[in-house]
């Protein structure tokens, strides 16, 4: 049970502060990047009229995600933010699925990954809001509906980052902890594959979709 | 003979401490229980607003404004709880 907290960390002292890099998580993230880049290259290399399976898969995913973005943002903005949405969803999907392969673990199990993605989504959403509405209208929104609601609105926006990141982190880490504990209890007989299927594949897909969908929605709320 | 809870150090249970401790528990209970009502109430408002917009989407602006005003009024007891909690924490 002691493995619950062990992490390989690389600590670099930097002018009085320590920069801590979690090596396992970074390696897993790079693995996901590699897979995504290779898939992307293969799917778009030679575009033929009668597509091969990988190209079909790529077209299916992209069209589905662009459809979601268009529903929420309208056609013009969908072209700007569509690639972001696709990249986010594919990254999260593969990250959440990585835990099924033995000896690999999900990069989203680390709060740093999910918090980073959440902050990125927040910055993009607010940048889109400022760009489309202008700075004054954006600031005045914080003072609706009553003037002294400003700090509460501000905290509400920050709470959105917290909720979106912690939800993904909690679900994925919770799933992996449950699998660990139940495997330990049942001596890894019979039950673990079903748990992997449920928590890894099923919950992983849903949570990736929810994170992506919420990012789209936050962008659309700021832009409207 | 001391039992385990008092082995190393006795908890400082004097008058002032009990009052402060009670104030903290009071603040926690006030805000905690006080958040239940407005949460449920405002949720009901939002649900019915969704239904109203579903029935009559053209009036979306008016319905949204009505919802927000209704929710703000429901919020008032929540704000009272917040005020009492903060008073208990910092003033008492």
């Amino acid at each position, binding site marked *: 049970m002691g493995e619950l907290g062990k992490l390989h960390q690389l600590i670099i002292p930097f002018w009085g502060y320590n920069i801590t890099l979690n090596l396992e998580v970074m390696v897993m993230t790079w693995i996901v990047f590699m897979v995504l880049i290779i898939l992307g290259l293969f799917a778009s290399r030679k575009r033929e009229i009668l597509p091969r399976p990988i190209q079909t898969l790529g077209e299916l995913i992209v069209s589905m995600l662009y459809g979601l973005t268009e529903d929420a943002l309208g056609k013009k903005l969908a072209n700007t933010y569509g690639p972001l949405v696709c990249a986010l969803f594919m990254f999260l999907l593969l990250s959440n699925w990585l835990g099924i392969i033995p000896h690999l673990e999900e990069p989203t199990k680390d709060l740093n990954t999910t918090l980073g993605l959440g902050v990125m989504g927040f910055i993009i959403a607010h940048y889109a809001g400022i760009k489309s509405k202008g700075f004054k209208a954006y600031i005045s929104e914080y003072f609706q509906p009553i003037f002294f609601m400003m700090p509460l609105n501000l905290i*509400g926006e920050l709470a959105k980052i917290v909720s979106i990141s912690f939800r993904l982190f909690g679900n994925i880490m919770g799933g992996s902890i449950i699998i660990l504990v139940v495997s330990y209890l049942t001596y890894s007989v019979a039950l673990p594959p079903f748990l992997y299927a449920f928590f890894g594949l099923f919950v992983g897909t849903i949570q990736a979709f929810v994170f992506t969908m919420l990012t789209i929605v936050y962008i659309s709320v700021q832009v409207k | 003979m001391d039992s385990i809870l008092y082995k190393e150090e006795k908890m400082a249970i004097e008058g002032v401490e009990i009052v402060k401790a009670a104030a903290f528990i009071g603040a926690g209970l006030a805000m*905690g229980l006080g958040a239940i009502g407005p949460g449920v109430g405002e949720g009901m408002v*939002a649900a019915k*607003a969704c239904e109203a917009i579903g*029935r009559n*989407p053209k009036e979306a602006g008016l319905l949204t404004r009505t919802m927000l005003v209704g929710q703000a009024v429901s*919020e008032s007891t929540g*704000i009272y709880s917040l005020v009492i909690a903060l008073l208990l924490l910092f003033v008492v």
Partner: protein
Amino acid sequence: MNVDVQTVVEVAAYVGGGLAMGFGAVGAAIGEGYTAARANLAISRNPDISGDIFKNMLVGQAVAESASIFALVIAILLLFVDVPVPSVLKAAALLAAGLSMGFGAIGSGVGSGYPGGEACFGIAKQPQIASQLTTNMLIGSAVCQTPAIFSMVVALMLMFIDFGAAPLQPTWAAYLGAGLSMGLAAIGSGYGGGLAAGASCEGISRQPKTAASVTTIMLVGQAVSQTPSIFGLLVSFILMFKSFPESTALSAAMALLAAGICMGFGGIGPGIGNGMAAEGAVRWVARNVEHAGDLMRIMLVGQAVSQSTAIYAMVVSLVLIFVV
């Protein structure tokens, strides 16, 4: 009374295990009962496909059961856990683990009953889309279990992480607060998520063509309803992992316990409220799918305002932890 440390630890573990299973059994039982009730109504309405309805009811009840199974696992672990270095601090942590899982399973259990029941009823109304309804029921119930999963994570952390050299006072109150914060806050979110999932099954049974939009808005609505339980998780983590300076003052301990109580109870109402908002939105997307975008927007606005009391509770909790 002269009690030694090992006894205190065992007492806390057994009480925690009892609480975990006791409270954890409540939710799933109520939820499964609701599913069975709706399934009976469905069969009375359409006896020819009673086989399908019956199968669907059993599947739905199985998913609702999972919250109680988490509670059972935690209770068994608490009964048989072997504590190498017993301390009163560990006793507080074990009791808190029981509280966290026990309360946390209530909401998800009751909530998961709604999609099961509505799916069974929907099959009676529209037998040809039975598989779609089952899929939607499974998706909704699975997301609805998330607060119970969070509670289980907190419970397992409280049981197995070695907190080492933390001082007894006031950290015992911090652990109890962590357990209460997560456990209580999960009640509302679990129940709310279930309301949304139930409405989605009902909506799809009314208008099968709108399934994709309904499922999307259900997932978004459920995700936002879970926010109070995530706040509870955050406060739990802070209470578990922040190192508190040793202080024998009763007020310091009570401040931490109060932080947990505040966030815990504070998560119940907004969780239920957000779930009701999501339920209304999902129900009406099924009836009026062209305006799904408008409905999603007003659902989010309404949920955001409804969450504000949860944010107040979190602010008061954080003030109690950091400032006081």
